[in-house]
């Protein structure tokens, strides 16, 4: 009985942590800042009108299962300076990581805000669960930069004080990995409509770049179906079986691929880097099983 209740409580806790914030809740989470006033108007954008605010950039957000964006400004008292907050909510934390990682570049100054954040001239961005938060300004003064970072930290604590990067990133071995090169591709991985939910990281060996990926089929049957579609597309006749083989993809080159359970592990190696594909993919498969 106690066990049953414990499980129920855990489930309730998870549901609570994953609960999406409404625009009103997000506004209420924002801290008051001396010398700054929150704009009266809170604007909310959805899948149909995100274009109205961020134009063509909306396309990628929509692919990443964007649901809603809440935006408002901090206005500096007695001046024309403002800081704009855009708070994007996506369907799942993985979807949010997809858009965050699509916009992330490794040359930023990274910050311990939310699961991860960074700053650059006129911006502080961070990720927390299903929320991707952007603070932006045209005022590049140190004072405004500090204010933005403080607001970001306060908001991140309210959204989820225990926010963390997706556990799937641990699948990628550290050796040779380019820092913060991990990405999540929601759909059409490698340009193939049938390959979805792919995690990818970039590696370097002897000055040559290659990429390692893992596709999450959600179930063993899901992985098998994707693999079958892939083999059919490239006109390879072998029957999908768990293990290592090579997909001869006329668009993306030869792809060493390991099917293990719900996952497909693979390497994109256009540069001809000397990689022991079997060992690397087996190592990843072990980590993913853990």
């Amino acid at each position, binding site marked *: 009985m106690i066990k049953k209740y414990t499980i129920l409580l855990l*489930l*309730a806790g998870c*549901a609570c942590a994953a*609960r*999406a914030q*409404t625009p*009103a*809740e997000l506004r209420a989470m924002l801290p008051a800042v001396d010398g700054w006033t929150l704009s009266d108007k809170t*604007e*909310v*954008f*959805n*899948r*149909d*009108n995100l*274009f*109205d605010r961020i*134009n*063509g*950039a*909306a*396309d*990628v957000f*929509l*692919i990443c299962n964007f*649901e809603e964006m809440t935006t408002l400004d901090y206005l500096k008292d007695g001046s024309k300076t403002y800081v704009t907050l855009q708070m994007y909510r996506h*369907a799942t934390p993985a979807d949010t990581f997809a858009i965050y990682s*699509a*916009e*992330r*570049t490794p040359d930023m100054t990274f910050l311990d805000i939310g699961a991860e954040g960074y700053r650059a001239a006129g911006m502080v961005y961070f990720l927390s669960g299903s929320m991707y938060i952007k603070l932006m300004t*045209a005022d590049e003064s140190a004072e405004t930069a500090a204010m933005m970072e403080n607001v970001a930290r306060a908001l991140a604590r309210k959204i989820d004080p225990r926010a963390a990067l997706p556990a799937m990133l641990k699948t990628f071995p550290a050796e040779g990995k380019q820092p913060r090169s991990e*990405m999540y*591709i929601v*759909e*059409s991985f*490698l*340009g*193939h*409509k049938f390959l979805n939910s792919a995690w990818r990281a970039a590696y370097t060996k002897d000055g040559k770049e290659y990429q390692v990926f893992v596709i999450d089929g959600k179930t063993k049957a899901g992985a098998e179906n994707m693999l079958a579609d892939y083999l059919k*597309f490239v006109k390879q006749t072998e029957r999908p079986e768990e293990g290592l083989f090579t997909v*001869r*993809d*006329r*668009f*993306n*080159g*030869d792809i060493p691929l390991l099917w293990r359970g719900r996952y497909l592990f693979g390497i994109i*190696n*256009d540069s*001809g880097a000397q990689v022991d594909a079997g060992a690397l993919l087996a190592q990843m498969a072990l980590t993913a099983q853990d």
Partner: protein
Amino acid sequence: MRNNINRRRFLRYTATGGAGLLVPASLLGQSRADTAAPSKNNTAPKFEQRVLGRTGMKLPILSMGVMRADNPNLVKAAMRSGIVHFDTAHGYQRGNNETMLGKVFKDTPRDSFTVATKINLGRDVMTEKAPALFMERFNTSMERLGLDYVDILFLHAIDNAAAVLHGPILEIMEKLKKEGRIRHTGVSTHKNEPAVIDAVVKSKVYDVALTAYNFRQEHVAEMKTALARATEAGIGVIAMKTMAGAKNVNVSAALKWALQDKNVCTAIPGFTNFEELDVCLGAAANLRYTSDEKTFMAQAGTVPTLYCQQCDACAGQCPQNLPIPDLMRAYMYAHGYRNPGLAKETIAALDLPANPCADCAACTVHCRSGFNVGAKIADIARVRSVPDEFLV
């Protein structure tokens, strides 16, 4: 309409059907993926080409909006399929899109493709800092693309005539043109497009208008006449958002709809996979509707969207003064995103009466998107009585 390839020939040319058969010699040898493709026939498909206004650029009617693509091999496949013009922007994926394109262009002869990028200044477009911001962003874009020049540079996402005619930006555009860092100039617009296009004509500086143009635009008649005026004045027109930003669109029909307008030089659909590329190639090869496409287009105008535009045009219409946009948003949460818990939270915050529509025999609210507002309120109000444990 001139169609240079028929359906049977076209199938040999598609990205997935005949990939690698179309590789121009100049594009070969870029990667192992390229060389892996068989190359027995290098006859590229000949799409209809149109001239981009006074720029004189002759472009295939199908170009690529790269904004959604992150796979360089998709861009290369597009090149092999006969597409030569690629559209990106400074802000797409915070620059990663330009960087990805730059990697593709690095090993590609410069005279085998054309590229456009766009600089968005947002609310700062009319401020004193606009020229410096513009130059900083342009220089960054050029670094990412790794090019000496771009073919078209757009002032991005403009929705009013004043911004088009803003002197400091016009001066920068002319200066960059003189320096040879850009070949042509343009303005992109997704809102208030006819007025922006007319201002482009008036500016005498801009050569190209990149505009949202699709069968679902409420002001489509106004758009058509604006494009005709632009063409008459020598302005090149490129169409974007041809899919109307929606899912469940017949991609081929939507693309054909835009390209059937001869005032459009080329369109930039944002395909993300080889299958979508094939669909776009097929549409561009033959602009006449199939019977399925005719059916789709006939019904297209009658399919209402699920998402409230939050345009507030309904404000003040409800005798009970109900917050209609919030209620429509709650409806969207429940039915669009399958998140009834969030719908309930949203409604709980609105402090609605127990039966919000009880005093009205019929709903008098007129929604611009065609929503049956009364029915949606009746539907979504029920979520309040569902216990939370069923809504996780």
